């Protein structure tokens, strides 16, 4: 029994190491002094300094944050409303909505991306709307994020005592007052977790952006992809290391929030 749990320890630690291999290698090589090849030749912060002077990178950072912010705002509002309403739908409606929310979550993103490309191009031909760029990317990202927000908010609501809302209603509160003073404060943690998830999803996305982007609307993942296609440089590693650092911070915050509020 002892040796069996020892093996399990060993295997599991090795698997965790395997998971972190790519993350570690990117961070390590972002500090490597040599420009070409993977031989280690000393520590430098040169590549991080170079990023600050790169206008393309700075524009991509701006676009990425703008895209994530705008899409998070829209998807959080829409997803929260749906998450609140979903359990009051008639059973058939609830079942169909459940499927509608599940499908975008498990579908290969490329299928969703090309379907949107077709929609955008057809509507553009008739009306001139949907010129590819930041706008179309926001539309695509919101579509991806709504299901995640709705499901998080709904699961938060599922554990909530409806007698409070009923009591308020019996005491003469209007439907809006009930929502604003009782339901909303209770689900606020769920909304914040949902919003943080939506933001992270947007930062992580490459495929949707790649297909729905237009001239001058590059995001960090698009920039990283096109750089890697030309050959990995230390600057790209430095940029990726920063992105990784941001993800780690976001996840630690998310974990702490969830521990505090959702348990």
């Amino acid at each position, binding site marked *: 029994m002892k040796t069996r749990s020892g093996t399990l320890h060993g295997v599991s630690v090795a698997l965790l190491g395997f998971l972190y291999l790519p993350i570690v290698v990117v961070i390590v090589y972002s500090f490597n002094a040599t420009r070409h090849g993977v031989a280690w030749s000393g520590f430098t912060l040169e590549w991080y300094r170079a990023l600050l002077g790169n206008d393309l990178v700075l524009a991509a950072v701006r676009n990425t944050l703008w895209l994530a912010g705008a899409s998070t705002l829209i998807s959080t509002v829409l997803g929260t*409303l749906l998450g609140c309403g979903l359990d009051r739908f008639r059973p058939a409606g609830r079942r169909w909505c459940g499927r509608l*929310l*599940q499908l975008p979550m498990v579908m*290969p993103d490329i299928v969703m991306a090309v379907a949107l490309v077709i929609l955008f191009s057809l509507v553009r031909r008739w009306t001139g709307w949907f010129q590819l760029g930041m706008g179309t990317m926001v539309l695509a990202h919101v579509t991806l994020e709504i299901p995640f927000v709705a*499901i998080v908010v709904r*699961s938060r609501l599922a554990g909530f005592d409806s007698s409070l809302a009923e009591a308020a209603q019996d005491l003469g509160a209007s439907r809006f007052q009930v929502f604003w003073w009782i339901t909303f404060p209770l689900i606020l943690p769920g909304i914040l977790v949902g919003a943080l998830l939506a933001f992270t999803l947007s930062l*992580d996305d490459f495929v949707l952006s790649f297909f729905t982007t237009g001239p001058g609307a590059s995001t960090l993942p698009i920039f990283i992809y096109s750089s*890697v296609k030309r050959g990995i440089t230390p600057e790209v590693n430095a940029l990726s290391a920063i992105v990784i650092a941001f993800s780690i911070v976001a996840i630690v915050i998310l974990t702490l929030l969830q521990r505090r509020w959702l348990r």
Partner: protein
Amino acid sequence: MADCRTTAEQAEAGRHRCAVAIGAPAVLWLTVFFLIPLGMAAVASLLTAGGYGGIEPPVTAANYLRIAGQGTFGFAPVYPLILGRSLLLGLVTTVLCLAAGLPLAFWIARLPGMFKTIGLTLVVIPFWTNLLIRTYAWQILLSPEGWVTGVARWIGLVDPGAALYPGMFAVSLCMLCDFLPFMVLPLYVSVEKLDASLVEAAADLGANRWNVFRHAIVPQIRSGLAAGVTLVFLPATGQFVIPDLLGGGKTALLGNLIQQQFGPSMDWPFGSAIAMVTLAVVLLGLWVASLMGGKQGGAELL
């Protein structure tokens, strides 16, 4: 009394109307930007390619026949091979992730207190770290001077100067690394709730380790297994970035084929047809998963 019931019913109907009203914008959004585009792709897949990404009549089944292997000069196995390769790679990735994910999920679930949270967070971090970055990093790791290649050379698995990428090996390894968290997290949720007394009872009654696993553990973690398999197999089958960066020319998958048609080849109807085939695989996979016992693929891990 009758009056009272009517008001209760009215209140219920009012609540239902209100719920539909607040849910409507999101449902409308998903209809306009998800369902309708999929419908358009379905229609496009039955039409003919015009110049510069155009979609024109006449209606034809030619795109699907092409995927099934009909070429200009008789049977051409290129596309059936890509379809088969995608399904096989999805399957291999799922099996590898299961083999690695089960021990990891059990290990984390048995860690004491604080360490459990840390262990879980350590799996969640790669889960939410940019897939593109974790993928291109394997180019470094598997290059001739890369760390992994170095170890393989030391063991004697590869010749000096050789690289481990591009190729199917690199794609599979990276798929395992990228999708393992998607398997571990739902499995962990199930394993966490596992009733250990059933496992002990089975062992006390003389079941061997395989039978304990098969009859006392698997039925209890069925929903986690279904969710994990769904979350790995479906995205893996449509992957585009991993084979694109690590596969080289000879390992195209469905995702790459779609990208090619919407990119350089400008054959949107054919691309749509491949997307529809991918969608069919997804729906089939979801159906199988629901038979396996997962009601909400992936929903439970949020």
